């Protein structure tokens, strides 16, 4: 149970307070309701580039990081297809510094040309490091446009191409800020060794005078239902073949979200899961195999991924995955197996309460979904799922004509004989 208080400023900023006096620290987390899905198809990667620019100085404060580090604080941020989230952790005695910094960059950025130029380069290096210069690094650049044809989930957070990042102009940055970075589009969570009264007073003081701005109304083309099997095969400089099968699934708030998430656990969570036991241990088809969902706010993806062993053909590998999917479509999950994944989910929720930052981020995410208190109702929703619901969900999702299959074929690479030594990979 994560307790909290909640209030809204006149300018529309929603504030949630979680008092936790077991720590000397505090967290200030701000979620902006903007992600890569809100980008123009001709300017992808912009939400993420923008996140970098948020650290390039604001209207009254030339350096963001330095004053925070000076008071013993740390910060980071991430961008997803749905949201952009910024967080600070610092000694609670210095919480006002976090209010000062976050309110100034919500008020306005410095919009420095130099910062834009440097962050363009940094993001281009990030693009190379994480997506291009890694084996299988470009999987999301290929898989997303296969699964999505209309919705803006068809591009990855990093963007479709480096060109879009190179082309970003300061006017675009200003327009993006005006459209998305205002109090009405933000949710702030303050947690830790602080009181609600203190947070109210500091919120009024630092955020109260920020203009409400214009409300952004999201109007994205929704992804139509898929009715044909899709497939792409690429030959790449990768050491092993790799099979991805992605299915369209419901949105985060759809009723069958909970059965589907448990279904992914049954298939792939831990060494007692079906895919691991059957396809890695018993039948020895894959060296590793995974199933997971994207938990997207709009229509999501259910993804299966496996690297077949060298003596296994792609056809055999795919057939083995489908065989497991057919089982969950045909036969209800036994009671013990369902209880197992439910218990695991329940204890995961308890363990997540050990982390102040996790609690703050969770409260923000659920407030975005409609109500921060949904966080405290999660466990009950997982425990209420029945085997019949899981079977029904499996039948709805695991259809050939709802599948997008991406195959990586390994180019015969040179054998790395000189690498006779190594560090163990942790």
């Amino acid at each position: 149970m994560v307790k909290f208080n909640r209030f809204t400023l006149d300018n529309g900023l929603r504030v949630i307070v979680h008092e936790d006096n077991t720590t000397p620290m505090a967290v200030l987390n701000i979620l902006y309701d903007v992600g890569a899905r809100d980008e123009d198809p001709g300017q992808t990667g912009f939400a993420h580039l923008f996140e970098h620019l948020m650290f390039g100085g604001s209207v009254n404060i030339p350096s963001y990081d330095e004053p925070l580090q000076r008071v013993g604080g740390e910060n980071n941020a991430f961008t997803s297809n749905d949201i952009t989230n910024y967080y600070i952790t610092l000694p609670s005695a210095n919480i006002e510094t976090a209010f000062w910094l976050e309110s100034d960059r919500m008020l306005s950025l410095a919009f420095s040309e130099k910062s834009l130029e440097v962050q363009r380069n940094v993001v281009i290096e990030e693009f190379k490091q994480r997506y291009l210069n890694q084996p299988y690094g470009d999987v999301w650049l290929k898989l997303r446009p296969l699964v999505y044809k209309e919705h803006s989930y068809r591009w990855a957070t990093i963007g479709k191409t480096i060109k879009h990042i190179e082309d970003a102009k300061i006017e675009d940055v200003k327009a993006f800020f005006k459209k998305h970075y205002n109090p009405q589009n933000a949710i702030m969570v303050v947690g830790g060794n602080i009181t609600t009264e203190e947070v109210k007073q500091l919120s009024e003081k630092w955020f109260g005078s920020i203009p409400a701005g214009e409300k952004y109304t999201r109007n994205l083309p929704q992804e139509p239902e898929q009715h044909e099997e899709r497939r792409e095969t690429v030959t790449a400089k990768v050491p092993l073949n790799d099979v991805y099968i992605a299915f369209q699934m419901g949105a985060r708030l759809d009723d069958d979200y909970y059965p589907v998430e448990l279904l992914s656990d049954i298939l792939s969570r831990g060494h007692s899961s079906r895919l691991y036991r059957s396809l890695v241990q018993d039948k020895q088809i894959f060296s590793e195999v995974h199933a997971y969902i994207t938990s997207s706010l709009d229509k999501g993806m259910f993804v299966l991924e496996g690297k077949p062993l060298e003596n296994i053909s792609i056809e055999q590998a795919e057939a083995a995955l489908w065989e497991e999917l057919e089982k969950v479509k045909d036969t209800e999950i036994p009671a013990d197996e369902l209880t197992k994944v439910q218990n695991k989910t329940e204890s995961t929720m308890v363990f997540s309460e050990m982390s102040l930052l996790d609690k703050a981020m969770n409260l923000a995410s659920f407030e975005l979904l409609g109500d921060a208190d949904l966080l405290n109702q999660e466990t009950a929703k997982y425990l209420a799922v029945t085997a019949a619901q899981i079977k029904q969900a499996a039948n709805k999702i695991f259809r050939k004509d709802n599948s997008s299959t991406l195959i990586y074929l390994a180019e015969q690479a040179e054998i790395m004989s000189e690498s006779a030594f190594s560090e163990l990979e942790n």
Partner: protein
Amino acid sequence: MTTIDRTLAPDFKAIDNITLIRPEHKKLDNGCNIYCFNSGDQELVRIEWIFCNLRFNVNKPLLNMAVNTMLTEGTTTLTAAQIADKVDFYGAFLQVDYGYEYSQVTLYSLNKHLHHTLPVIVDILTNSTFPEKELETFKRNQQQKLQVSLQKNDIVGRRNFNKAIYGDTIYGVGASFDNYKALQRDELIAHYREQYQPSNCTIVIAGKIEPGTLTLINDTFDKNWTNGNTPADITQPEIVPAKELFYLTEKADALQSAIRIGRPIVNRNHPDFQPLQVLNTVLGGYFGSRLMANIREDKGYTYGIGSGLGSFKQGGSFSIATEVGADVCKAALAEVEKEINILKTELIPDEELSLVRNYMLGSLLGSLENVFSHADKFKSIYFAGLDYDYYDRYAATVKSVGAARLQELANQYLNFDEFYKVIVGKY
């Protein structure tokens, strides 16, 4: 509403006291030491069984790792599947982890299920069988993973660097395909018998420890767990670094080059280690560091660059690592050299040093998130043979070490020409 001056930073307080939770200690009759950290509101515990690794054999470098990783693959009474089922059914998490010096088994469990989950651990620690079929699966899958790892420039860079500075020790040598192929079941079993015995084990418990929990642990891990005939040989061969300093692995089509440079250095037990931590933070130990400010934030050569100190029983390491655009590899190295030389020739300005002091103290405070973190702090000193004074000295050093002393240390330890330099990609 009163107007506020947004250009002025709010007042702040320096961090002066950091309180660490200290454990209660008890020793079982079989020689196993137990340390308990009892705190927290959630009805759960984390229990770690930590074992020193056995003496490293360069011809069989994978034994410590293979034995640890395969602990969950079957016992005389449970199959791998049954072990996984039991743990998962009770919502617990069972991890096996190995490092350079220790191998461990960790159980995260809700208190209410401990009487179901603990017997699985006893079984793993006393009756593991390393079944032939699972061993073959392990060998094959690990080789597949190694193939993927060897395609990653940063990983190849780290392997080459470690080999250079640590030589034929557990720190320097790791897996080749042949090492995996050569693993033998009887050797794993012999290694297991020697390493996983109570006199070579430390148990660390953290969480809300109920009165019954300790009795349960006592009953489960004292009476049913006895030492073998041979004590564990935990001595280690001496580290002999390579003579050659420069290593280039060329990749014709690389978009980025992985760079890793550095040198062997003193470890945590040496009085210079803590002031070196301050120096390292200034150079590359935090987001606002000089390396980040110059090479990422000013030049845009990289997504990230950092430096770090490693501390092991037998020594330590200092290293700088980054991945940079292939066309700016030499330019990035030149900037790194420039930053090192500035540390040697110019005093760190007061303002920067006071920022780093506050940042480091804030980080220490922030690293104490929950009772698990307090246990982790304990492990760092306990296994290095240090006392809680270590953290008092750390806070005092961070607050007071002077710029002149840091410059001296830079001159003593950071000579760019003497660094080992590893490049993977284009140079």
